[in-house]
């Protein structure tokens, strides 16, 4: 193939890894968001404390430091996980910490009258949560979750620094061997843009749809 298309094939191979990483880390982050978010509102204080420590730790340190820690330090404890697993784990846990705040604040944003109406209709606490609070809170979460997903996609590039062969890693490697710096790094930027921008448009569309529905 002719330049720059010969580069493109290799970059697209990395793109697949980037997408995989994004999807799995997002799923993990989603689950963690709810578990940690609800733990922060639990009546049982040790659970609340653990959740707070978790979020403080993941939000207070730095994503790249966390990745390095898993990559350089864990093997010292004879824990050997693949770079892909490490990437998914750390990205998921990190974005889960941010997501838990989204879950918590959305649930707290639902007026108290909604809970009270449920109580007065004699619903069980679990019914109030699942049938009344969560469906409404979820609508509030969607736009922020959407934006976090875009941030997550962009953050996956960091895993290239722990040798996972994603799009960024492939780009850096090809640049090293071919020295076609401008083309390679330009293409990398364009590919990321093509992945992220549809997400941006999708989030905006959802956001509009939700606010129109509410007004």
């Amino acid at each position, binding site marked *: 193939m002719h330049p720059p298309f010969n580069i493109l094939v290799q970059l697209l191979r990395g793109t697949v890894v980037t997408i995989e990483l994004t999807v799995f880390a997002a799923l993990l982050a989603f689950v963690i968001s709810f578990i940690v978010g609800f733990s922060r509102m639990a009546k049982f204080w040790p659970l609340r404390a653990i959740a707070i420590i978790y979020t403080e730790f993941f939000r207070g340190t730095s994503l790249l430091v966390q990745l390095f820690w898993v990559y350089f330090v864990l093997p010292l404890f004879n824990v050997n996980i693949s770079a892909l697993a490490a990437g998914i784990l750390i990205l998921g846990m990190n974005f889960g910490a941010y997501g838990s705040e989204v879950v918590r604040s959305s649930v707290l944003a639902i007026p108290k*009258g909604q809970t*009270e*109406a449920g109580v*007065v209709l*004699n*619903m069980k*606490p679990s019914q109030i949560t699942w*049938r009344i609070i969560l*469906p409404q809170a979820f609508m509030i979460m969607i736009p922020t979750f959407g934006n976090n997903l875009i941030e997550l996609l962009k953050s996956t590039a960091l895993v290239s620094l722990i040798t996972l062969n994603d799009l960024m890693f492939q780009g850096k490697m090809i640049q090293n061997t071919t020295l076609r710096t401008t083309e390679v790094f330009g293409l990398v930027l364009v590919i990321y843009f093509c992945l992220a921008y549809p997400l941006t448009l999708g989030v905006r569309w959802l956001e509009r749809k939700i606010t129109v529905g*509410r007004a």
Partner: protein
Amino acid sequence: MNTNAETAKVQPMVRYRNICKSFGDLKVLTDINLEIAPSEKVAVIGPSGSGKTTLGRMLVTLEKPTSGTIEIDGEMLWHKTVKGELVPADEKHLRKVRGNAGMVFQQFNLFPHMTILRNVMEAPVHVLGIPKDKAKEQAISMLKKVGLEAKLDNYPRQLSGGQQQRVAIARALVMHPKVMVFDEVTSALDPEMVGEVLLVLKEIAEEGNMTMLVITHEMAFAQEVADRVIFMEGSIVEQGPPQALFGNPHNQRTQEFLSRFRNA
């Protein structure tokens, strides 16, 4: 209409006994003793902050009394008897007794993510365990009663305030409570919508069976539907049949309150 002499003989539907309620240091209610007979309609009036809402919310477990006991239909609400001793009720007991009471809020509190029909069906299906088709039938007939059978598939935000409040009433009624608390159900409404909601309330009252605790600022309405009017200000200051309380109040505070109302 019931007279007080008649109601004294039967077991009351609601009994507040020595109820006190404080929020932190703020004493809101002191030593409330109140019995409401089955199917009696009691209107509660009083100045803002006098504890009317608090009184009603305690009956549906939204506020916990600081001391004293409340009974609904002969059953302790906040306590239960274990081996002859009163102990604080657990969630299971609260749910059981609370099933006898319903409440309509000033701010409607409809579920915005559900259609009108689902708002009314949700609790019968998931709390009472009534089959869906049957619950739907009941919900529709209840919505008919409040004049909203045409709005089944609309969402709350598509309805006027008066319509929303009528849905809230249907939602409470469909649970067939023995006693209902109405807390200033017309206060959040535009003036032109007050009438339609009061009309529904009057119909429920005239059907006769429902025991009602109606907190209201609508004196004319209280006079019309209530068997008894209570004027309260942290405690029960004066009570009696509407003609007596409105026509010839004895207590000076009641007089002041009512005169302020007439002038307003």
